[in-house]
């Protein structure tokens, strides 16, 4: 069956569900989308998630599970809103900022978001470098050189449309995602603790706040907000409000199902880290280098290389995300572009510096996700402003409830970031 025939079949199935024509049960109706949604969910799980989940589980047990749930729910809201902006207007978030905000403010936003794009890239690069380091047993410096070369090759191959490479990479990351979920069944975590901490918000000191902020950054992803809003970029404008609304509903299915699966994978990672390290008092060993131990109940001796491969491929497959986000951000805010290869070189520099300085990769990864969280309000607040503008959004404007939820999400993130700053500096000022 040709690719486009497959597309039409999937869309017709989605159409039936949206219009309530399907006679099947809820899960049966969702089944046709699970394949693409699973692949999408795996794409949402990157080295930043690996690092924050493993370290959170090791250091604090199940305490931060509620953060994973809350972050994913927030991400569902924000990412659907972001794509909705692109669908309704045909322009991305950065372009709207440039058109509507004062020049000086646009310049500041651009600089902040470039830092965010670099932090994204840092996480992917470090993840891949650690993957090479674990897999091949080579020094991290050499692994960094190998990562740089490989990401360039992937960037070049993408020009030739080597999307099948993406499928291979996704396949490997899927292995680890499925493994963690299966391990929930065989690993025997403390389920009573799991349910309690999934629902009840709690912190245990400033480090747990930092990790919570890191999980937030790794899940909600400010760079993805800009990329999602570019869904309709460079496309011929479609103005039929009925069609646009349908497209928006499809997009909700995409985000909710994919992020729902991603939240299960992230949750499973944290739970297994808690069950493997924290429950045995090994609270200081939650690094990426030792994280493979969490997979040993299922994979035995294969755990180390499976984890290393998955970390490597997760980093490589996400390598272009930071680059693409940076391109969208620069083009949108400044109406200017640099060659993609030049951006790749520039964004690799911080990663290479960190490795040369001997900074612990896991800590650097977690810190990069914390940076992402600090970048979130500068993406979410403009997004809320634009998606609440009826003149701009037409019939896709935010409902009152969506607006309130969006303000709540932005408020929680800002308060959490400020709280982290206060807790971090408290010993200095106190």
């Amino acid at each position: 069956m040709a690719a486009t025939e497959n597309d039409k079949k999937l869309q017709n199935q989605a159409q039936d569900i949206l219009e309530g024509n399907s006679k099947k049960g809820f899960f049966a109706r969702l089944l046709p989308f699970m394949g693409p949604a699973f692949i999408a969910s795996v794409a949402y799980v990157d080295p930043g998630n690996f690092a924050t989940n493993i370290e959170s589980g090791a250091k604090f047990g199940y305490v931060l599970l509620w953060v994973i749930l809350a972050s994913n729910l927030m991400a569902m809201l924000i990412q659907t809103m972001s794509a909705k902006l692109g669908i309704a207007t045909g322009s991305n978030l950065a372009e709207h900022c440039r058109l509507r905000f004062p020049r000086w403010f646009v310049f500041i936003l651009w600089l902040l978001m470039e830092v965010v794009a670099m932090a994204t890239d840092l996480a992917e690069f470090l993840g891949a470098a650690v993957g090479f380091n674990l897999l091949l047993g080579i020094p991290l410096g050499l692994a960094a050189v190998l990562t740089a070369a490989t990401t360039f090759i992937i960037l070049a191959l993408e020009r030739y449309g080597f999307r099948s490479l993406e499928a291979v990479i996704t396949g490997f990351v899927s292995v680890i995602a499925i493994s963690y979920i299966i391990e929930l069944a065989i690993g025997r975590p403390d389920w009573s603790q799991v349910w309690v901490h999934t629902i009840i918000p709690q912190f245990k000191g400033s480090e747990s706040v930092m990790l919570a902020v890191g999980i937030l950054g790794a899940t909600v992803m400010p760079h993805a907000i800009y990329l999602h809003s570019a869904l309709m970029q460079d496309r011929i404008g479609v103005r039929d409000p009925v069609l646009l609304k349908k497209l928006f509903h499809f997009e909700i299915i995409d985000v909710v199902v994919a992020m729902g699966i991603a939240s299960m994978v992230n949750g499973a990672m944290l739970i297994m880290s808690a069950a493997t390290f924290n429950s045995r008092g090994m609270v200081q060993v939650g690094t990426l280098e030792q994280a493979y131990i969490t997979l040993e109940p299922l994979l035995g001796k294969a755990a180390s290389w499976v984890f290393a491969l998955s970390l490597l491929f997760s980093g490589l497959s996400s390598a272009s995300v930071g680059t693409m986000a940076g391109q969208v951000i620069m083009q949108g805010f400044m109406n200017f572009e640099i060659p993609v290869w030049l951006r790749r070189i520039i964004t690799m520099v911080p990663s290479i510096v960190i490795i040369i300085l001997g900074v612990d990769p896991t800590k650097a990864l977690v810190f990069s996700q914390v940076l992402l969280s600090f970048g979130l309000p500068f993406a979410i607040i403009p997004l809320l402003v634009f998606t609440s503008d009826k003149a701009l959004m037409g019939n896709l404007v935010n409902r009152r409830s969506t607006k309130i939820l969006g303000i709540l999400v932005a408020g929680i993130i800002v308060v959490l970031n400020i709280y982290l700053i206060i807790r971090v500096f408290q010993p200095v000022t106190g």
Partner: protein
Amino acid sequence: MLAKILIPLDGSQSAEEALPIAVQLAEAYASKLILFHGIESNAPAKIHGERHLQSRAEAEVYLDTCKAFLLQYAASDRFEIAVHIHESAIDDIGRGIIDHISELEPDLIVMCSHGKKGIRKTMLGSLPLQILKMGKIPVLLVQPSALELKLEFSRPIRTLLLPLDSASRHDNALITASNLAQHLTAELTLLTVVPTVSTQKSIHSHSSLHMPLSTRMSLEMESAEIARHLSEHRALIHNEFQNPISVHTLVARGDIVRQIQATAASLQACLIVVGTHRKIGMEAFWDDSIAFRLALATTLPLLLIPV
């Protein structure tokens, strides 16, 4: 539109392959054909196994022979043929041709792509593409025949293919293509290729991966919208030209360059007309320039119109 057509010749049979199509255009537009040669300093006798002119005397004899040959085989005497030889030796033939653009003021340069091959051609671009980049006037790129070289004067241009992008960035090629179709009494097909989820590139590859369902739907919506947009182009063309032109529209799905080639094959297109931002070599590679990829891939004559 095509008052003067410049054809650089170096004495090789490959370069001569540009002549048949140049003659057809000259007949259609009553153009002046300018057979041009620039004497290269330290020119070898052969390049890539083919003869290469080395002196002014040799070039004069050669170009006069070409002129006589064309006058003998061309279907009419509607056009004029001039010969121009650059006086002093030049090191860079591309630069030499460019320098003559302001002097000779051609509306079109017709060249056969020969010389650089493989990775050098990909990284640096062929000589015609380098001239396109520097000269900023349209270049008609003729690909060398794989088989025994023949000057096929008997095959008229009857089918033109014009790929257009969905963002209308290359629409100025529409005017040229319509004009050509009218003068050549050819059929014109307007083609836009919409990628599928698996063939999307650049920033859209992100949405393919993260939002597969909505990406599929948005591409379907785009296909429908483009079909309507191309119909509007067709209506505009019909209104613009007094003599009716046969214009067809087509929306294809998949990899852009492959679909253009496949469509050209199925239509038995004689000429592909495409707008270009004149990016060549590595710049074109990183920017995923369709015109450049097509220039490397197609075996059909390719008219590159700077946008």
